[in-house]
């Protein structure tokens, strides 16, 4: 049993448990932290697969940004801790049944589509050099340059829409609006009426 297989088994089992904890935990904070933990574990597994750059990105981007965001939101919204566990129990058997049925189906599906099951997953793909990041960087900036730009755009979109959705003007603050001040309209212009009598 070589070292890779052992690490794979440890981490994958841990990963599955954390994932189950994520969805079953009553307290959203707890589930957020479990999610963070599962990201760490999957980063390790990705390292195993030879995708170093992506695993580090996973940790940086996901754990750093997204999960922090989640925690922010969780903290901000005073979510009452789950009070409806009863209903939860009622649906559990159905959930498990679906879970198992689904697994069997997909695994059965995988098995007979890949002819040599024992193809080694762990492999290092060379394009210009042995380091994964260099290869990825090369590919990103030559072949997929347009998609890269679009990705940037999507992130911009993410930012702007988040702000637009949640921004509320504070009614109390007074600020000057120069354009309104200098614009004049016909109806409130002063009119001088000459007196005809003299």
């Amino acid at each position, binding site marked *: 049993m070589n070292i890779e297989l052992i690490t794979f088994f440890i981490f994958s089992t841990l990963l599955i448990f954390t994932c189950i904890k994520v969805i079953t935990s009553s307290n959203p904070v707890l589930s957020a932290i479990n999610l963070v933990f599962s990201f760490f574990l999957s980063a390790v597994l990705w390292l195993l697969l030879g*995708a170093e750059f992506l695993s580090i990105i996973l940790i940086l981007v*996901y754990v750093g940004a997204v999960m922090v965001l989640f925690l922010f939101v969780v903290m901000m919204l005073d979510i009452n801790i789950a009070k409806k566990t009863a209903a939860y129990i009622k649906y559990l058997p159905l959930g498990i049944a679906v*879970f198992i049925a689904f697994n069997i189906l997909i695994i059965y599906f995988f098995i007979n589509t890949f002819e040599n099951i024992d193809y080694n997953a762990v*492999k290092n793909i060379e394009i210009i050099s042995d380091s994964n990041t260099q290869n990825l960087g090369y590919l990103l900036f030559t072949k997929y340059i347009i998609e890269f730009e679009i990705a940037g755009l999507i992130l911009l979109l993410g930012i702007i829409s988040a702000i637009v959705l949640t921004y509320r003007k504070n009614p109390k603050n007074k600020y000057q609006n120069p354009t309104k001040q200098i614009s004049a309209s016909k109806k409130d212009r002063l009119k001088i009426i000459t007196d005809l009598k003299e």
Partner: protein
Amino acid sequence: MIPISYYLILSTIIFTISIAGIFLNRKNILVLLMSLELMFLSVNFNLITLGNYLGDLTGQVFVFFVLTVVAAESAIGLALLIVLFRSKKSIDVDDLSELKG
């Protein structure tokens, strides 16, 4: 040497866990979003393993893009959640049923 099927089985398990998460959760939408994240994670798993199987880096490039998209998506998701919370004072799944036919 880890056969490819192990990874694929792992990603299906995570995928079904996240589906169960969406399906089972009676609590709030946050869990829903998190299980969404899990789903993306399992998809990335698949992408990388099959990328390796085919000996082609596009899988990983694609994962890279998936990550960016998911980040933006979860940002917007959370913003919506906040707006929803502001108007509904609760994000419990059972309360949100305006779309009732």
